[in-house]
């Protein structure tokens, strides 16, 4: 029924778009529409499209005094440095490979473990027979989503500092304390745990919303046929949820080079002891502008990230189009 409506809606849309009258006619007769678009037009030009032109900075030795187009053009030198061109180790020991590898591994771990946990929690919550329990659990799990990363930094410090909760606990059971802020090897686990912790409530809500949309008569039929709880989960819920999981995971893969900067920077700060295991592209770019300025190099890394990201999204969309054309972005 809903599908029929959308089809007829689309047909009327097509009919309407067929009678095109040209932009002048539209500017005159639909001027209110155009006026209403002015603020967003200005915003996206200033804050999204002008910075795109600014990628030119990646090809310069940036000079604050001279500005974007006054700085010296140096071609691909910044990129050559990042990609280790001409160095002994070549690409595999270049900064960009280290950053890309770290970024990919972190995001993959967060994505896969996070998704698995969110799906398990959503399915379990749906089956548990207490609505009150579900509501309060969801509220509790959603809490970390609402707090700022600055507060996450405080929480991490409170747990991990030399006299933090974890070390207090270790002392109380007679184990030696760990100075986490000087031991880089623990941080991949710490960061992944915090990322999962922060995203659990949000992801659970998304999957729970998908689960709530399933046709209940299927479950009733299965129940009448004598399917057990585990059978219903394995043979109805999971197969129905699979497309959602796949699509959401694929789209997250499209953004896998980006993000989690807030989390990394608030946990690690300018602690160079931890950098070997925690440096990601976003952190590198941020440090290049805010901490030890190297504008050209940072822009080059950012440009690489954007371009590689664009390729990934296009690729992911192509895959989604193959499996689930309705969900493709473009």
């Amino acid at each position, binding site marked *: 029924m809903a599908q029929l409506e959308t089809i007829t809606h689309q047909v009327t849309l097509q009919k309407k778009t067929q009678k095109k009258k040209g932009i002048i006619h539209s500017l005159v007769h639909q001027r209110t529409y155009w006026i209403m678009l002015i603020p*967003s037009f200005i915003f996206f030009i200033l804050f999204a499209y002008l910075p795109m032109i600014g990628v030119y900075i990646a090809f310069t030795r940036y000079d604050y005094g001279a500005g974007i187009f006054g700085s010296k053009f140096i071609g691909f030198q910044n990129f050559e440095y990042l990609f280790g061109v001409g160095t002994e180790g070549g690409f595999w020991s270049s900064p960009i490979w280290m950053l890309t590898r770290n970024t990919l591994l972190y995001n993959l771990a967060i994505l896969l473990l996070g998704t698995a946990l969110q799906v398990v929690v959503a399915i379990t919550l749906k089956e*548990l*027979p207490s609505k009150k329990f579900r509501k309060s659990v969801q509220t509790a799990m959603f809490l970390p989503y609402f707090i700022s990363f*600055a507060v996450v930094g405080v929480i991490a410090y409170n*747990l991990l500092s030399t*006299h933090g909760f974890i070390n207090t606990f270790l002392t109380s059971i007679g184990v030696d304390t760990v100075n986490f802020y000087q031991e880089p090897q623990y941080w991949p686990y710490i960061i992944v745990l915090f990322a999962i912790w922060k995203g659990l409530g949000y992801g659970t809500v998304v999957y729970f919303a998908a689960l709530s949309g399933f046709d209940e008569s299927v479950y009733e039929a299965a129940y009448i046929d004598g399917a057990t*709880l585990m059978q219903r989960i394995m043979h109805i819920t999971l197969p129905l949820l699979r497309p959602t999981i796949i699509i959401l995971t694929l789209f997250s893969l499209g953004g896998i080079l980006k993000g989690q900067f807030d989390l990394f920077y608030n946990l690690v700060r300018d602690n160079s002891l931890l950098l070997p295991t925690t440096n990601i592209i976003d952190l590198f770019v941020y440090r290049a502008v805010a901490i030890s300025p190297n504008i050209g190099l940072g822009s080059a890394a950012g440009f690489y990230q954007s371009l590689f990201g664009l390729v990934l999204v296009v690729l992911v969309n192509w895959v989604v189009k193959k499996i689930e054309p309705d969900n493709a972005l473009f």
Partner: protein
Amino acid sequence: MMSQAVASKTKIKTEKTAILFYTIGFVVIGLLALACLLPFILVISGSLSNNAIISAEGYSLWPKGFTTYAYQTIFENAKTIINAYTITVLVTVVGTVIGVVTIAMTGFVLSRPDFQYRYGYSFFLYFTTLFSGGLIPWYIINTQVLHLKNSIWALILPSVMNAFFIFLFKNFMRAIPHDLVESARIDGASDFRIFSQIMMPLAKPAIATIALFTALHYWNDWFTASLLITEEDKHPLQFLLFRILSSASVVVDTSVIREEALPSETMKLAMAVITTGPVLLFYPFAQKYFVTGLTIGGVKG
């Protein structure tokens, strides 16, 4: 409703595996929920503890040597914190209002089937989610071209809207029949009047959702200030917290200098509680709008 019916039926049948599943489910999920809450409890109890005992014995679940000393010290010299609160509230309110109005206008136009340029404009917006100049060009444009450095507008304008919220609003508007607009037009209403007096009241849930997402973003934003604001009297709450955590010297600036027993550890925690307080109080009531936002927005932007 329906799932409850199914659930109650399964209860009657009481399969053995189901009972096991429920038991494990309640315990594991309960523990997970606790893990989400525990850090907050630790922060609050730490903020109410005696700094000297904390330094000697470490933190625990319950306040050690209960005292409100950390809060008192912060509020004794309340100028910094009140100033940061004012900045944050101002930025949040102004940013959210401008954001919601401009997002709604754009979303409304893009949802009109009689606007033939809607696909082109959508692409203009959508492309910004696919490709960006990156942080540094963004920074250079903001500081060197738009001269926003150290302006309060630097905290507002750069994140006032994004393509995702516009599409979310557009999707919501599309569900309202266009016939409503057509008939209002026949009655002689202008397009702007249709937008403000017919569509906006109908779009209240979408407006609430976007307003809350935007407000939360502004409230929690430390990042924009870290790059664009160097003058301390324009620092918002979260960046103040960020600075307090990163250096003890700031703590000395913001509080009355007491040579002995500076409550730096517990003060950090007290600051975290103070900056998050409004969000903690507000979010249980607001969370349903976030859920709506997630479901209307769906997978598609």
